[in-house]
């Protein structure tokens, strides 16, 4: 049996304030390859903290996090950075595209910090843009594109380097319903191609499209039974 993409074991995060705040308490989560998981919860429930843990942007206080079979909690800062760069593709609510660089350059940026060769980078970026159906906007600056197009460009960047996990933080938070649908359709396509997707959101529309929904409340996780619009 292959290693799960994400395996959290009693993961705990405490912030050293006075009194200490326990943002995540002994969380267990298992995400298999090609899973499409939505993590939902109200603000202040620990969503962002969990995202930072999953994205290797912050360290847990205790517990274990195996990403793609690698125990990440024991890694040094530089090794964590390498794992982050090579295994995780980030999609942010605010896109985080560099405003002065073309869409193609923004996508190519994903490979700048890996050990990959410069040769063929442009072609790989063009293929990633093709996957998100943005081939007609290659030389555009992000400022001249719609929100949906910008988010698709950001997803293309996240897809560069074939990450094990696509980690999305409120990916449709800045989009209207039409663009939201386009992005969610894209996620469906990607999942069909075998991509593992974790979406953190508070929008029902997003979480309903996921195969699995996990609710976080006051730092604890609970699996939710999926219901379609017809049954609820």
């Amino acid at each position, binding site marked *: 049996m292959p290693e799960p993409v994400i395996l959290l074991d009693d993961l705990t995060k405490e912030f050293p304030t006075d009194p200490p705040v326990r943002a995540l308490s002994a969380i267990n989560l298992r995400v298999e390859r090609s899973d499409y998981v939505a993590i939902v919860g109200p603000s202040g429930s620990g969503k962002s903290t969990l995202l930072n843990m999953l994205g290797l942007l912050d360290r847990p206080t205790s517990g274990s996090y195996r990403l793609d079979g690698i125990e990440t909690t024991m890694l040094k800062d530089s090794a964590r950075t390498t794992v982050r*760069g090579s295994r995780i593709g980030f999609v942010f609510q605010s896109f*985080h595209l*560099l405003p002065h660089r073309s869409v193609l350059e923004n996508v190519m940026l994903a490979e700048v910090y890996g050990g990959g060769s410069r040769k063929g980078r442009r072609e790989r970026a063009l293929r990633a843009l093709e996957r998100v159906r943005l081939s007609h906007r290659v030389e555009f600056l992000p400022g001249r594109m719609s929100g949906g197009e910008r988010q698709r460009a950001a997803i293309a960047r996240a897809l560069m380097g074939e990450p094990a996990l696509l980690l999305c933080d409120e990916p449709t938070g800045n989009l209207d319903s039409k663009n939201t649908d386009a992005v969610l359709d894209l996620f469906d396509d990607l999942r069909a191609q075998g991509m593992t997707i974790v979406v953190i959101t508070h929008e029902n529309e997003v979480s309903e499209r996921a195969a699995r929904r996990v609710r976080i409340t006051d730092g604890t996780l609970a699996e939710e039974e999926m219901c379609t619009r017809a049954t609820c």
Partner: protein
Amino acid sequence: MHPRDLLNEAMAGLLARPVRSVLTTLGTVLGITTLVVTLGVAATAGNQIVGRFDELTATSVTVEVPENPFPLVDWADVDRVTRLRGVVSAAALAESNQSANLTVRSNDMVDPTRVTDQTLTVVASSPGLPAAVKGRMVEGRYFDAGHIARGDKVVVLGRHAAKMLGITRLERAPAVFIGTQAYTVIGVLGDLKREKSLASAVMLPPAVGKRYGLSTVTRVLVNTGLGAAELIAKQAPAALSPGNEALLQVISPASPTRARDAVEDDVNALFLILGLVSLVVGAVGIANVTLVTVMERIAEIGLRRALGAARRHVAAQFLLESTLTGLTGGVVGASVGIVVVVAVCAAKQWTPVLDVRLAVMAPAAGAVVGLLAGLYPALRAARMEPVNALR
């Protein structure tokens, strides 16, 4: 990370805000320009002043012999100076107040319609005078030891004196009268480089000069090889008058190196400080703007960290950006500085003198300024936690 990617990212970072980058560069441009202009103009001006210490001045030594109850320097003593190593030529000269304004005529005729009398200076000299004044015999020859030994009544005229007396050719052995005494003119001395007043003088052999109070040597003219003047100035008095050297006055050229150093020190000190201050101000400017840029680009730093950039990658990018800013300032400053130096030289009609090292070092200095200025902002950027940067 590939170095070309690093350069690419740094250049893109700078070009994203071109106006700001240009303004940031200005401080360094000013500093480097000031430094290059200061050093360039100082070197050029120093060389112009050194240029005035030409070969003639730098090799001329004059020994003045004061009046004394007994003669300090004898006519034959000049030979001892000539034997010193480094001396090219030397001659002794006798002048006196009595002989400074003597009436000289070219014939004994009294002609009321013409001015035939000329008031000329009469001097006595040793035979080596033409060489000692770096002149040449326009006509005839100078008197030699034989003329002196025999007490021949011969004279040599300065070229100007000959013209005033109307003597142009010597084939017929013309004579001039000093007072009532007739002397045969055997040569005309012209093209003098030193003691140019001798061009309108009458030169006598010492033996004859005694009649006009020209018995003792009053001045010795010495020409030295290049660079020997300082040494000869020390040795000549002892050679001329052993035991009385302290009584002789030596006039020797100032040492050119010392003259140049003094000039450079004067000009440099103030402007160098000015240039360095501008450079520090420029560095503070770069540091300030880079720090502001880092704060503005927190999200970008977070994104780069999320894409797998290590702290050193982030630090390297901001360091390179500030270094490139400094380098640009250095290149522009060096260019402007050199143009200013050339312009100043053109206005003053100087020959521009520029140390090649300066043209290379100035951009390098700019880059170092940028590098130092970028250290703190780069450190701040590298220390940033990705969690906070992405928020």
